[in-house]
């Protein structure tokens, strides 16, 4: 089987893997980037959220073979002003508790704000409802997304 070729965090990435292997495990165990987490393996929790060609996807349920040629971005590789605003707001409001879901939360929040610069509470609820947080940091996630949106206005 020829290796699968993609771009990971801006660098070419050639993976020698079973095409059915989920993107999450290829990134965590082959590329060695462990910021994206395993929470359910069934597209239920969002802990594994990455961007594939700019769109948030559940990497645990995305076979690596199905996205050959794509650009994959993980929490380790996000950059730009939206990502910075989101991460800054997360730190400013101390959103995290255990932190395990937060890579996924941030990836979803960056995708939301890239699409919608001024989301309402309802926009946030619908964009973020695929990301579970067992520590229930939801109040602060909402507040931090508003905070990031505000920072991006200036």
């Amino acid at each position, binding site marked *: 089987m020829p290796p699968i070729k993609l771009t990971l965090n801006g660098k070419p990435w050639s993976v020698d893997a*079973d095409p059915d*292997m*989920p993107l999450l*495990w290829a990134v*965590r*165990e*082959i590329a*060695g*980037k*462990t*910021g*994206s*987490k*395993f*929470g*359910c*393996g*069934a597209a*239920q*929790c969002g*802990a594994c959220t990455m961007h594939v060609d700019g769109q948030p996807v559940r990497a645990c349920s995305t076979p690596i073979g199905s996205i050959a040629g794509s650009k994959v971005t*993980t*929490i*380790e590789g996000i950059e730009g002003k939206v990502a910075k605003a989101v*991460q800054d707001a*997360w*730190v400013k409001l*101390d*959103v*995290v*508790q*255990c*932190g*395990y*879901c*937060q*890579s996924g939360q*941030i990836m979803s929040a960056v995708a939301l704000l890239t699409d919608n610069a001024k989301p309402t509470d309802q926009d*946030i*609820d*619908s964009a*973020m*409802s695929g*990301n*579970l*947080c*067992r*520590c*229930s*940091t*939801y*109040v*602060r*996630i*909402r507040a931090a997304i508003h905070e990031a949106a505000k920072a991006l206005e200036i």
Partner: protein
Amino acid sequence: MPDGHMSDTSRRRFLQVTGGAGVGLMVGFTWTGTSRRAQAAAATNAFVPNAFVKVAPDGTVTVLIKHLEMGQGVFTGLTAIVAEEMDADWAQMRAEHAPANAKLYNNTAFGPIQGTGGSTSTYNSWTQLRQAGATARALLVAAAAQTWGVPASDITVSKGVVSSGTHKAGFGELAAKAATLPVPADVPLKDPKNFTLVGTKLPRKDSAEKTTGKAIFAIDVVQPGMLVAVVQRPTRFGAKAQAIDAKAAKAVKGVVEVVEIPRGVAVLATSYWAAHQGREALKVTWDETNAEKRGTDAIIADYKALLPKPGQLVTKEGDVDAVKGAKTLKAEFTFPYLAHAPMEPLTCVVKLGKDGCEIWAGDQFQTIDQMNAAKTAGLKPEQVTIHTVYAGGSFGRRANVESDYIVEGVAIAKALSDAKVQGGKLAGRPVKLIWSREDDIRGGRYRPLYVHGMEAKLGADGSVLAWQHRIVGQSIMAGSPFDQPGKPDATSVEGAAEIPYTIPNRLVDLHTTTSPVPVLWWRSVGSTHTAFAVETFLDELAAEAKQDPVAFRRKLMEKHPRHLAVLNLAVEKAEWTKPLPKGWARGVAVAESFRSVVAHVAEVSQDDKGRIKVERVVCAVDCGIAVTPDVVKAQMEGGIGYGLGAIMYGAITMKDGVVDQSNFDTYRCLRIDEMPKVEVHIVPSANPPTGVGEPGVPPLGPAVANAIAALTGKRIRDLPFAGSVSV
């Protein structure tokens, strides 16, 4: 954990059960001799005045945290206590997990055990860490006094700068000298009036790492040559593997070996994906002779059949039977099994050698895990090194007296060392055991299923004359070192045995049942169910007496001023009497757990389709001195969300002994669109800190249920309520 108390009997029993193994762990340092400190300092080039504080030459102060950081904020709160007494600058402070060492790092609320639970982290560390910080400060001051030739009394310390007149130095500059000085005894602690950090909003120490993906959890640990393992466990609790057909599993690319361990069959592979596929291909036949074959409906029926019968006496005040002719109210409640479902499934990495074992885990029960790992590996506890890393949540799950997932990891590593397994060539390969979410949901150690029966007698004036509370369910403590045989199981009745309401005749009793379904403490333990029963039933009595639920509670609470103050703060901030929009209602509940008192006022609404939504929760908490108030707020927010998800959706059910749920689609948890707005108010206090991680949970369920009753007239007595109320 139970409420963090370990009686003397428990302590003795603990030492018996463990064969006094605690003693074997008591190696390590005494940290009083100057030479020992000087050695440690020379080795690390740091000033190490005690087991909790390290000052590096660059001025960085690292606090060794003996508790597990699992989200509850110990890296921030415990560090703040040391920083306060040192008069350090918050920016120079760091936190890291302490090594496992029961002698240096035991939880003083548990006795001779290092472990985290019962919301005791701040409570048991408060004085210890204040002394550690104050001692470090005194040594730095003494070093400055000698260097500058001034009396120590002329020296001030502020924000990490030691100064006297024109002299000024940072902690780092004084560290080398301080390391050579004798440790003073009885260093005075600060007057809390002079606190500048404790009680203020301090940024969390783990925020940056946790927003960049850099924080390391057990699942992220990589060791050279490591194999990944998953375990096939029986479908029914109590079953054992009888026959294993591993042929197809071993044929999966990447699968390296299949081994049997006492708890099931492990598939080892070069990656999680291969291990997972190998397990899918594995065929195991189970011996179910001793397995639980009842479904949860049958268990509930069995428990309900016990309700008319008197149980083991827990509390008896006055004589409930002597109250005649009063109006009697009765209610029955059922509480399902609940999974903790921490966001990071259980994981550990084990590296087993001939004379030692290293474990990486979000370890919550270091001393017990060391002993169980040692027993499994055939080593001594002191040969087991635990590297505690961040845990992706726990809610009690990672602390269990059998060390289930740690023992599995060690048993797998041990199986590989057998010469019969591939001629012993896998011996010593590190093993990362990963539980899948399905393993977690179906793996047991649930909050026990309980049935409660309540009965009360009301006088004509609405006074509560008699109160009877009967509880039926499994014991969390039975068979554990914390068990107190002969006494009613404390974790089943906490929150019911003692209530903050004065009622002249009161009877509480308990039926402790048994089942192969393993059970465990779950964030706030007994109060997860007792507070619900007590606070909703009390609300029913208030309604029956045609009294306002707040006024009704206030009258009964006169002898409990602390509870009363918390209740009053919550209702004041929630503007209890202010009219709400149409289709909305409020409910209130108050509960004490882990030495703290919390009251919630919940506002719920119902839309035109009849769907209930929890809109807002106003919380008041008395947790003594709030060391880091923003962390206290976060824990209340978290407790509210965790509790709300549980009462709406949380249930592990079984058919013929097989668990129905498997992942977050069937074991639903609260999502962001269901999270109410939250307001938290902290009662100012000068008392030492009490619990924070758990106490936000107990009053949430009853406050919401009481609001739903106020709105719809429907009393929720069977949880979760999404089955009977539309959400």
